[in-house]
C-alpha cells in the first residue's frame, strides 16, 4: 500500500458490506414480511430489491433492511413496513420489485411515502 487513498478506497468498498452488522442506531428500518404467505406472494424479490436498492443508494449505514414473520394481512402480501424515527410507520402492501424501487427513490431517499401503495389506499 503506497498511499492513504488506496486504504480509503478499500474502506469505501467494504463499508456497505459490513454495515449490515452495525444496525443499532439506524434511523430507517425496512421490514419485509417473509412468512409462508409473503414468500408465496413474491416477497423474496421485494426483499432483494430493497437490499440492492439501499446499497446502490449508498444508504446501507442509515437504512436496515430486515425480514419478519406474518403480519396478519395475508391477502395483501407482500407487505413491507417502513419505520422511521419519531414518525408513524408506513405499511406498503402488494409490493413488487418495481414498486420497491419507487419506494426507495421517493420515500427512503426523498422522505415522502408513496401513498398509492400503502395500506390506506386499499380502503381496508
Amino acid at each position, binding site marked *: 500500500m503506497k498511499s492513504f487513498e488506496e486504504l480509503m478506497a478499500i474502506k469505501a468498498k467494504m463499508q456497505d458490506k459490513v454495515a449490515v452488522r452495525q444496525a443499532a442506531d439506524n434511523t430507517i428500518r425496512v421490514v419485509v414480511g417473509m412468512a409462508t404467505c*409473503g414468500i408465496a406472494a413474491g416477497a423474496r424479490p421485494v426483499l432483494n430489491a430493497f437490499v440492492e436498492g439501499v446499497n446502490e443508494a449508498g444508504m446501507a449505514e442509515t437504512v436496515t433492511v430486515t425480514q419478519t414473520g406474518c403480519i396478519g394481512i395475508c391477502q395483501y402480501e407482500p407487505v413491507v413496513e417502513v419505520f422511521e424515527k419519531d414518525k408513524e410507520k408506513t405499511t406498503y402492501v402488494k409490493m413488487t420489485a418495481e414498486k420497491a424501487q419507487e419506494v426507495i427513490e421517493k420515500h427512503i431517499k426523498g422522505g415522502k411515502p408513496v401513498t398509492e401503495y400503502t395500506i390506506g389506499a386499499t380502503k381496508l
Partner: protein
Amino acid sequence: MIRSHVLICGGTGCTSSGSAALANKLTEELKAKGLEEEIKIVMTGCFGLCALGPIMIVYPEGTFYSMVTEDDIPEIVEEHLLKGRIVDRLVYKDGVEHEDASAAASLSDTNFYKKQKRVALRNCGVINPEAIDEYIAMDGYFALAKALKEMTPDEVIQTILDSGLRGRGGGGFPTGRKWMFAKASVSDKKYVVCNADEGDPGAFMDRSVLEGDPHAVIEAMAIAGYAIGADEGWVYVRAEYPIAVKRLQIALDEAREYGLLGKNIFGSDFNFDIHIRLGAGAFVCGEETALLTSIEGNRGEPRSRPPFPAVKGLWGQPTIVNNVETYANIPQIILNGSDWFKSFGTAGSPGTKVFALGGKIKNTGLVEVPMGTTLREVIEEIGGGVPNGKKFKAAQTGGPSGGCLPASLIDTPIDFDTLIKAGSMMGSGGLIVMDEDTCMVDIAKFFLEFTVDESCGKCAPCRIGTVRLLEILNKITDGNGEMEDLDKLEELANYIKSASLCALGQTAPNPILSTLRFFRDEYIAHIVDKKCPAGVCKGLLSYEIDADKCKGCTLCARVCPAGAISGKVKEAHVIDKTKCVKCGACIEKCKFGAISKK
C-alpha cells in the same frame, strides 16, 4: 446480493464446542434452500460468552443464538433465514424483557453485554479475522496512516503518555514511558516485541484478541516501531494457541501483500516487518527478560534488571515489550485521541480491561469493562452470579501471582491500584470465582503447585523457597499442621518476595499471603480442629455410614474401588477407614443419603 450475515464464533471456546461443524452444516442447508447468494457466513473471533457456545449471531436483526447444535441448523435456515421468524427457543435473553421478539433477541441488551465497553475487543466477534478488508472497513490501519502522515514519533509517544495507558499484562507500567525510554536509547537497530505468552491458568484474553482481531496487534506494533525507531517486530506466542498462531500468520501475509508491512509503508520512508516466535509454554517466558532470551534461542530464564529492555533488550538492542491487549488499545488511542481514552476508567487507570471469567460463575467467558467497575458488577450482573444457589466466597485475580478477595471486598472498584491495596493484583485479567465449596487452603496449594512446576530454577529463593512453602501447605491439608506453621509460611513468603530475581518468584507467595490475610480461620480449622470446612482436603475427611439410614442395598460396597465397605445384604454397612481412599464414589451412589463426609 447479500442481505444477511450469519456470524459464527471461531474462537477456541466455540471451536471446541463444535462451531466448525455448524458452519459446514449451515453452508449445506443454505445451498439446499438456494440462499447461498443472499446469506453470508462469517467466522469471527470470540464473542465472550464462551459458557453458552457455540454462538451464532444473525444480522441485520442482531439475533443472538446460543448453544446451537447441528440439529438446530435446518430450523434456523427454514424459519429465520427463509421466513424471517426468529427461533425463540435458541435466543439468549438473559435479563432482557421486551415485547418485540426481535428486539429481545438483540445482543447489546443482555445483562452480559450491557455494562461492557469494548475497546480492545471491539472487532472480536464482529469481523472475520482472516479478511483484512473487513478490518480496514472498521477503520483498520487508519491509525497507522494517521501516525505516519500527520504525526512525528514524539507526538505518537506523547499521545500514548497523555492517554495514561498502562501495561495490560499485569505490571501496569505506563506504556508511553516505556516507549519514551526506548526512543531515547541511541542505536541503529531497535525491536518491538509483543508478549503473547499468556500463562495464567484460566486466562485467555490475549488468545481471544489474536484470534478475533490479529490486525489490531500488527497495526499497533507498526505504530510502536515508528514511534521508537524500530523496523522489526517479534510476536512471542505459545505453540498451544494453534488458532491464534494460524490467524496471526494469515494476517501478517495479508498485511505484507497490501504493503502495510514491508518497505516504505504509505509512501513514507518507514519500513517495518514482523516475525512470529513460538514459545513452548513455559510460564516464566511471560517475564520480559526471559521472553527475550527465549526469542534469541536460549533457555527461557530471566536476568536481573536494570538494564531494562528499553536500553538493552533483544540481541542487546533497545526493545519494547508490550502485551497483546495493550497493543489492541493503541490504534484506537491514536485515532480518537488521549482524551477519548481517558473518558473511560479511573484517573489512575484509564481505559478498559478485559477479564476472563472462570470458576463458579454462570457466564464463563470474556468481558471488557471500564476500569473502576466493581467486582460485584462484573460477577453478579455481567457474570450472572454464582450458580446453583451457592454463596459467593472469594474472587481470585491475577492468577498465580495474585490473591483472593473475600466477599466483604466485593464492592472494590477494579483498577491497578485498588487491587494491590486489597492484597491482590490486576495480573493479566484472569478472574476466578469461588463459592462456599472451595477450600482456600487448597486454592493456595493449587497455585503453589503451579509456581513450583513453573519456577525456572535460576534463583534459589524461588526454586527452593516455593517448594518449602508447598510442603508446609501439604502438611496442613494432611492434618499434621501446627499453629507455628502459619508464622513460618508468612516469614518464608516475605523472604521469597523480597529476594527472588523476577516477578514469578516475587509474586509466587501472594496466593498464600492473601488467603492467610482474609481466610486465616480456615487455616486454623485445618490445624486446630483438623477439619476442612469446605469438605475438600481429603486428608481431613472421613466417610461414615449412618446405620439408621442404611438399608443394606450393597450398592456402595460394589462401587468402592478399595474394597473398604463391608456388610451383609439388608444390614447396615460400615466403612473401614484404613482402606478408604476418600474418592466419594459411595456417596454418589447411595440412594438413601446414608453416607456423609465430615
